[in-house]
């Protein structure tokens, strides 16, 4: 508890939290404040910002504010879903591998090292491009989650391996606890704050990854995401034409979410993991 209180005294944490809650608020309450309409053309293509349409329109003449809020919601959805998948899968495998050692641990280590050498992005691109239709937002989130979990597994593994040497684990063993009970009751609770930090990072990474693959034209076929807005701007020559409102706000949003999450994570590591303090 003392640690949590200490966290709220760190300016960078408060700043990151405020920024993140701001974007979250925009995603949740935006639809109540603005009239969201992403299907009808409300004006000419690439109308400059002005009264009525604060951020102008896109290449089809759809209101940019509506597009951005819808895209933000989609990006956050992908981020959280992928973050949850990657953290849950990664943590369970990492904790188990770290505790058990042996073959599973070796496989895990090899897998993570492989993923370090082969950029995840390429795997993602290959997977996405092989599924032309049926590439829904959820599916993309699952793919991102399933290709980035090794990262959390690796982060948690070392912690788990050092806990395994503690006598309370030995005591649980001679009390007849099964391996899975030990992982869940004796090891995981000690790692919760750590797992939460890993989750934040995974979420931030997932949001950036979605933006990247969508921008390459491999995004969801049926929804609007921030990455897809950027892709539309790119393919419809907004950059060359100097139509900044078609891509700058989306870029800012992606950056702000990822940045705020990274700031929160760094501040938390400083508090929960004093050993990382320089």
């Amino acid at each position, binding site marked *: 508890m003392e640690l949590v209180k200490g966290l709220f005294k760190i300016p960078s944490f408060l700043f990151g939290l405020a920024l993140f809650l701001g974007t979250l608020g925009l995603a949740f309450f935006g639809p109540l404040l603005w009239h969201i309409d992403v299907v009808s053309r409300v004006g000419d293509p690439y109308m400059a910002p002005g009264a009525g349409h604060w951020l102008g329109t896109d290449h089809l003449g759809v209101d940019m504010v509506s597009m951005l809020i819808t895209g933000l919601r989609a990006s956050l959805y992908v981020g959280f879903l992928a973050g949850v998948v990657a953290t849950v899968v990664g943590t369970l495998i990492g904790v188990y591998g770290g505790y058990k050692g042996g073959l599973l641990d070796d496989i895990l280590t090899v897998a993570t090292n492989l993923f370090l050498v082969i950029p995840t992005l390429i795997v993602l691109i290959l997977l996405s491009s092989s599924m032309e239709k049926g590439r829904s937002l959820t599916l993309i989130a699952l793919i991102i989650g399933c290709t980035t979990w090794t990262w959390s597994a690796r982060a948690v593994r070392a912690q788990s391996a050092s806990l395994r040497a503690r006598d309370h684990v030995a005591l649980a063993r001679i009390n007849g606890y099964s391996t899975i009970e030990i992982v869940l009751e004796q090891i995981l609770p000690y790692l919760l704050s750590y797992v939460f930090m890993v989750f934040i990072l995974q979420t931030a990474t997932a949001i950036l990854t979605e933006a990247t693959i969508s921008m390459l034209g491999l995004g969801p076929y049926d929804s609007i995401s921030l990455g897809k807005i950027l892709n539309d701007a790119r393919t419809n020559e907004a950059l060359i034409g100097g139509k900044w409102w078609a891509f700058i706000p989306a870029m800012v949003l992606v950056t702000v979410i990822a940045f705020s999450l990274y700031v929160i994570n760094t501040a938390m590591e400083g508090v929960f993991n004093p050993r990382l*303090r320089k």
Partner: protein
Amino acid sequence: MTAPALPVQAPVPGPAPKPAAGKVVLEVEDLRVHYLTRFGAKIQAVDGVTFSLKQGEILGIAGESGCGKTTLVSGCMGLYIPPLYHTSGDVRIDGQSIVGMTPEQNRKEVLGRKIAMIPQGALNSLNPTRKIKDMATDMILSHDESADKKTINDRLRERFSRIGLDAQKVLNSYPVELPAGTKQRCVIGISTLLNPKVVVADEPTSALDVSTQKSVIRLLFELMNQEIISSMLFITHELPLLRHVSSSIAVMYAGEFVEYGSTEQVIFDGRQPYSRALMGSMLSTEPGQKSRKPVAIEGAPPKLDKPIPGCRFAERCPVAQPDCRSTDQVLRVVGGRQVRCKYADTDLVKQVGGTV
């Protein structure tokens, strides 16, 4: 046993640095400290302790587990972090009171600088993922943020070689790579980096074998002889060890001092049943000791969540009298030391233990 046993009451000259009858460094006055539990119970773990520590003095504090030794030392450091609270009384270092300080202020001005602690169980709680060097650097940085890397490194190297460690090697090791004795020497080295006046060592040797224990205590003496530190509080549950370490001894029971006097008085001529029992239950390897029955004190120490009427030890005292449970005991001077026992000056207490 190879060495001949010396006659009782004629102890050899103490090996500890001679107490320079110098000025008082640490003064603790009627200190009371309590824990507040989650259920709102108030556990009075230290209940009215008074003592003072002179320059060059080592005070040994012995007592049963849970009698409040660790709590007393946290209280002496002035570091009150919930659930630990200061009830009343005062702690002064060099005349300056430290009980009213906020934890931040205390960490900045007092901890490590005026009074340093070697925590109980430190050996096993060192962070396994950090090198000794990093932990030591933290210690310096916590008080001098502007120190640059080179000065810090030079300072660490100088100090670690001075306390007889292979500085280069040890500083770059992880705790798990070092044997227990070396680890404990490192802990001591790190906590005394800033030349604190008083060092509080909380059971620094209870996890160590006798040879390693000896080397660790030697190191503590060296620190005093080199005037890196000036006085020490030595906490242990092993009264006999204090014979060689401290110049005076306080025996604690249920949050209070029950006997407080010079080492010779308490060890060879205790006047309180509990401190006598502590000596009487010593297990030694002298021939014939195997058949001797050590004094076992059954029963549990009292719970400290409500005031306890009468003598706190009466419940378990082998020679308790009917009136012991009804009359509160105060520390009074008997035979040149302070004792908390109604029958301290009678032969009754001598029935307990006494096989030293």
